[in-house]
C-alpha cells in the first residue's frame, strides 16, 4: 500500500511539473471534492455500514488540440484499509474529424439509469453493491479510444481495451457479499480467474451514434470478456468430500442498440443487447463443470416526464435466456423495474429524491429515499435511507442491510 501511494504521489508530482510547463499557454484546472460518508444499519446493534472520508481530485489541462486529465482519489476508512488510486489518467488529441483518448479512462455507454446493458466497457466496483455514485462504481480501463466525426450528427467510436479488467466483488466478510449456497462444502481455486496481461486478452468495442433532433440512436458491438466470473464446479474427495470451485472469466460477444426520442412531453429511451455465449450455472449433472453456454437478450425501455418542479422516470428491464433448459439456476425471464421521482424546492436549495429497483421474479426491491440540502454553493448535505425488501433475489438477499446514511460534500 505504501509503495503504491508513493508511486502515485510521484506520478502526480511529475504530472504537475509537466502541467506547470504548459501553464504559460493554458491554465490548469483543479477541481475535486472532500466528502464525509457515514452509514448505519438500522438493525441492532446498529453497526456502521460505511464510515468513509473521501478526497477526490481532478486535474485538467486543455488546449484546442491537446488535453490531459488525471483523477486521483483517496478513500479513508475508519475500520478497513484505506484506498488510494487513480480513477482516470489520460491524454486527449483532438483534430477536426478525430478525437483520440489514450490512457486509463471511464467509458459510459447507453441510455439506461442504474442498469448496465450496453454500458459494458468499464467494469464495476461492487464493493458497496450499487450504493456508490455511478462515477465511483465504474472502473477506469486502460484503453485507446478513437472517435471519428464524418459529420456533426454522426460519430464512430472504436475502443481497444488493452487488457481485461474484471468487476470487483464485495470483499469476503462484507455485508454486501452475495448469498452463495452450495450443495457441498466449497473449496475455491482462483488460479484460472486472472486473464494475464497479454496482448491477445484485449477487448474491442465499436459504436456508431446518430444524433438528430427527432432521436439519438446508437448501434454497438463488442468482443469482450464476461466481467462476472463463471464458477466451474467439480466434485473433490481430497482432503474432504466437497466441491472445487474455480472462477473463470470467459469471452463474451454482443450486439445492441440504444435510443432516445421525445414524444409530446415525454422522453422515451431504451437500449438492448444480444449476448452470445454466456456461461450459466446449472444443476444439470450432465453439464461440464455445472455450466451451460446460452445466448441471452437484455433490454430496457424507459419513460421520463417533467411536471413543474417534479421529475418522473421509470424503466422496465427484461433479461431472457435463449434456448433455456431446465436446471439453469437463473430464471428464463427476469423482470425488473426502476422508478425515479425527484423534486427541487426553495430555489433548488433542497431536492428530494426517490429511486427504487423492483424485482418481479423474487418480489424484492431496493428503495433509496434521500434529501439534499445545499446551504451554500458547492456544499451539499445528503440524508438518505436504503431499504431492502424481500427475502431473496438481487436485493432481497440484503434484507438485513437496511440503513440510514449521511453524506456531506464540499466541491471546489
Amino acid at each position, binding site marked *: 500500500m505504501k509503495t503504491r501511494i508513493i508511486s502515485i504521489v510521484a506520478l502526480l508530482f511529475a504530472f504537475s511539473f509537466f502541467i506547470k510547463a504548459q501553464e504559460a499557454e493554458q491554465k490548469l484546472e483543479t477541481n475535486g471534492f472532500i466528502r464525509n460518508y457515514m452509514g448505519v444499519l438500522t438493525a441492532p446493534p446498529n453497526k456502521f455500514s460505511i464510515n468513509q472520508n473521501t478526497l477526490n481530485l481532478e486535474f485538467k489541462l486543455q488546449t484546442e488540440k491537446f488535453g490531459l486529465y488525471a483523477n486521483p482519489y483517496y478513500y479513508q476508512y475508519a475500520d478497513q484499509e484505506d484506498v488510494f488510486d487513480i480513477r482516470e489518467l489520460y491524454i486527449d488529441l483532438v483534430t477536426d474529424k478525430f478525437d483520440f483518448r489514450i490512457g486509463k479512462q*471511464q467509458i459510459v455507454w447507453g441510455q439506461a439509469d442504474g442498469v448496465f446493458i450496453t454500458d459494458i466497457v468499464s467494469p464495476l466496483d461492487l464493493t458497496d453493491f450499487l450504493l456508490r455514485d455511478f462515477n465511483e462504481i465504474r472502473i477506469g480501463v486502460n484503453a485507446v479510444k478513437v472517435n471519428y466525426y464524418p459529420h456533426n450528427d454522426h460519430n464512430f467510436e472504436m475502443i481497444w481495451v488493452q487488457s481485461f479488467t474484471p468487476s470487483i466483488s464485495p470483499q469476503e466478510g462484507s455485508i454486501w457479499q452475495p448469498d452463495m449456497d452450495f450443495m457441498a462444502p466449497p473449496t475455491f481455486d482462483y488460479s484460472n480467474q486472472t486473464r494475464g496481461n497479454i496482448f491477445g486478452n484485449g477487448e474491442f468495442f465499436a459504436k456508431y451514434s446518430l*444524433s438528430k433532433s427527432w432521436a439519438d440512436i446508437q448501434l454497438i458491438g463488442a468482443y469482450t470478456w464476461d466481467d462476472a466470473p463463471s464458477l466451474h464446479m467439480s466434485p473433490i474427495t481430497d482432503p474432504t468430500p466437497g466441491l472445487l470451485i474455480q472462477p473463470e472469466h470467459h469471452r463474451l460477444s454482443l450486439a445492441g442498440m440504444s435510443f432516445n426520442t421525445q414524444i409530446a*412531453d415525454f*422522453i422515451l429511451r431504451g437500449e438492448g443487447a444480444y449476448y452470445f455465449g454466456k456461461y450459466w450455472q446449472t444443476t444439470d449433472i450432465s453439464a461440464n463443470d455445472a455450466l451451460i453456454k446460452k445466448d441471452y437478450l437484455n433490454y430496457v425501455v424507459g419513460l421520463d416526464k417533467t*411536471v413543474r418542479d417534479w421529475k418522473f422516470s421509470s424503466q422496465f428491464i427484461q433479461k431472457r435466456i435463449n434456448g433455456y433448459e431446465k436446471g439453469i439456476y437463473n430464471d428464463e425471464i427476469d423482470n425488473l423495474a426502476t422508478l425515479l421521482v425527484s423534486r427541487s424546492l426553495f430555489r433548488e436549495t433542497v431536492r428530494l429524491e426517490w429511486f427504487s429497483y423492483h424485482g418481479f421474479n423474487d418480489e424484492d426491491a431496493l428503495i433509496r429515499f434521500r434529501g439534499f440540502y445545499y446551504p451554500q454553493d458547492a456544499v*451539499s448535505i445528503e440524508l438518505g435511507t436504503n431499504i431492502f425488501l424481500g427475502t431473496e433475489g438481487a436485493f432481497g438477499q440484503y434484507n438485513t442491510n437496511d440503513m440510514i446514511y449521511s453524506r456531506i460534500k464540499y*466541491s471546489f
Partner: protein
Amino acid sequence: MKKYKIIILLALVGTMGVSNALAQTGNEIADKVFNRSAPENGESDMTMALINSKGKERQRFLHQFFKDYGDTEKSTMFFKSPADVKNTSFMNYSYDDDRDDDQWLYLPALKKVKRISGGSKDDYFMGSDFTYEDMEKRNPNKDLHKLLKTETLNGETCYVVESTPKEEGQYSKRVAWVIKDKWIPLKIEFYDEDEELLKILSITEYEKLVGYWIIVTQEMENVQREHKTVIGLTNINIENGIGDTYFTQRAMIKGL
C-alpha cells in the same frame, strides 16, 4: 418553444409584445419591439446572481453560444461555477414551427448526454426569478395591448403599454416601458392572477454592438417573495461566425 438563449443575450425583447391599442402607434411599437433586429450568432459570458431578502447572494457563471439557422435556433451553455455544477452543459434547439424544443444535458459526473423533456413554461430557470416564458420571444398576437401614456424613465422617453393575454397564462397582465426609437423595454411589471404586482424587470445597462442594441445587465425582482435575480453579460462577441460544432453533443462533452 423556449427561445431563451438568444433572448438572454438580447434580453426579453418580446415579453411585453406591444401592439394595436392606440391605433397605428400601438402596432408600430409592437412590430418594432418584436422585430427589432438581432444578431444571428454570438457568444458571451453570463453571470446570474440570486439575491434573497437578507441580501445573501448566490452566483452562477456560464458561457453561452447561440446561432440562428433561420427555422432553428441553437444554443449551448457551459456552467463554469459553482464547483459542483462546473462542466455541466446544456444544449437547446428551438424551432419556428409548433414543435417543442429539443434539449440535452451533459452531467460530467454521469459522463453521459441525456435528452431531457422541457418543463412547464412557468418553471423558474435555474432557481432564478425568470421563468422560461419570461425569456421567450412572445408573439404580440397572444396579447391585447393598451398604450397607457408616454413617460420619461431614467432619462429616456418611453411608451407605457399594458398587455393582457388573450388566453389565461401565468400573468394576468404586463406593463412595459418601451424606449422610444430604441424599442427596448426598459422596465416591465408582471402581475399575478389576482392582478397583484408580482415581479419587476429592470434593464440597467444596454449598449449598441455591431449595430445591435444589446441588453447587458437586467434585474428581475419578485416583490412578493422579496427575491431578485441579476443577469449580466460580459465578453459579448456577436456576428463572429460561430461554427456549427458548438451545437453538438461532442462540444457538450468536450466543454470549454
